[in-house]
């Protein structure tokens, strides 16, 4: 199975936990006409990691890097959720049963329902299992 087309490039940005950092990131992306499709912040004491799916990851990466931000690409996958009780359980169970660990995840409400973004420790394996289970993975081309 060609798993590549389901691998999505998330940008991950190291940010100090102080006023104005997120604004600086958002303003820079706006100026570059980069659209943010999904987004989350994880924070620890004093610093955080901003994670985002954007329509032009390379452009976003280069711009933020030139501003001195510590930024990296991370491979994630996106699962289309059934809009009914138990939707999350199905996806989590498939991965859990296969011994695939979810490092973190976040969700956003897409045009056709909720989408779950997953950062897993075995990307290819996760894609195969989810595809085999009949759940819908969103292709990279939808994002960028």
């Amino acid at each position, binding site marked *: 199975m060609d798993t590549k087309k389901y691998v999505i490039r998330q940008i991950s940005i*190291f940010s*100090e936990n102080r006023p104005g950092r997120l604004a600086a990131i958002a303003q820079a992306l706006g100026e570059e006409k980069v659209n943010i499709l999904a987004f989350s912040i994880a924070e*620890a004491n*004093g*610093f955080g990691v901003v994670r985002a799916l954007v329509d032009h990851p390379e452009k976003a990466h280069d711009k933020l890097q030139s501003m*001195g931000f*510590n930024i*990296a690409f991370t491979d994630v996958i996106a699962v289309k959720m059934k809009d009914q009780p138990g939707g999350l359980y199905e996806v989590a169970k498939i991965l859990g049963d296969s011994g695939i660990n979810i490092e*973190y995840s976040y969700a956003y409400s897409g045009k056709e329902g909720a989408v779950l973004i997953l*950062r897993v420790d075995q990307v290819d394996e996760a894609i195969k299992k989810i595809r085999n289970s009949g759940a819908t993975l969103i292709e990279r081309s939808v994002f960028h």
Partner: protein
Amino acid sequence: MMRWDPRIEEMPREDLKRMQYKLLKSLVYRLYSFSSFYHDRMKEQNVHPDDIRELPDVKKLPFMFKRDLRDNYPDKIFTAPRDELVRYHVSSGTTGKPTVVGYTQNDLDNWTISLARGLTSIGLGRGDVIQVSYGYGLFTGGLGMHYGAERIGATVLPTSVGNTERQIELMQDLGATAIACTPSYLLHIGEVAEKMGVSIKKDTKLRTGILGAEPWTEGMRNRMEDWLGIKAYDIYGTSELSGPMFTECSEQKGVHIWSDLALVEIIDPKTGEPLEAGERGELTITILQKEALPMIRYRIGDISVLEEDTCSCGRTHPRIQRIQGRVDDMLIIRGINVFPSQIEYALMAIPEVGQHFQIVVDRKGSLDDLLVRVELNKESFSDKINDLMLIRQNVEHRLRNSLNVNVDVELVEPGSLPRFEGKSKKVIDKRVL
């Protein structure tokens, strides 16, 4: 291996000590007889030149301090007539009133010769292009290095400090093979070069760094050598000694102090008692041949260790280890002495964080609180918070182990900590005592 002056540089230690004794004796007689300042000082200490009968008797002589120069501003204790002076240098006075140092022609010659020996000992000479990126002017670094480099027949590129992009262009265009500057300025040059798309390692002929005027560490040396493709050598001196005066040799095992020019002691900063070779203490120097402004047992305030074994380069002159801090930079955190250089040293062994750091000392309740801010390296960034927390814990753990006090660490964005072109100010002490 090249020597500038083989006879002096390889002279047996006993002969060197005999020479030092003679120089000290005549210096003390001269000052006792002709300078009221030194005369009064020796009287107060109840010591007469006749009491100096062997080299270790130097410990009978009174100390000199920076405040002696400040109190006698600008030239009250100079011991050469005004018309014998050929130059002044003035120290910046960051910690008080400025101090003025005067030089006779012989003083300048000795300074230059000292550097000529040092620069030769690291393999520089005719054919080298030495970029002098120490400040020219009242500060001793620029002019001192300038004349030392000219003396060995090298070509000097006198860029002074600042305008870093132009420095990098000139370094490339004129093929500089060596640079003399502060370690933090060389780091800055490396960073600016990268932003310009220039690799110091691949796109320049730079192979040697002569770095000093602020404390740095072995870890910084390794990192700069790797990153910039150079050999980095320590240089030592202060304006009171003349300026940057003594360097390491190609063995990089400490700075050789030429015994015919200077007598080094390491003393206990609290009691003033001399310590044995190999013990850590305050560097105290007597400049043996200075005419305009002699220095007897001058307490520089730098912390170091003296090594008296013959260096593997074959030179017999003693070496001082890398400066490990300043007596007055010492922070006391919950009763424990902490030198910023110890923090620097510990950080350099941790690849996940950068070269720059900032120390913030505060008092929370009745307890001192030590916070160290470090830049996370690009390669170590992870999108997983846990990985970053582990890096921070590791840094905290290592700092705690080397300092014996609790340390909080803050990871900050690369490039966000202040850079300094000159002496770094890395400590913010917010304690109101």
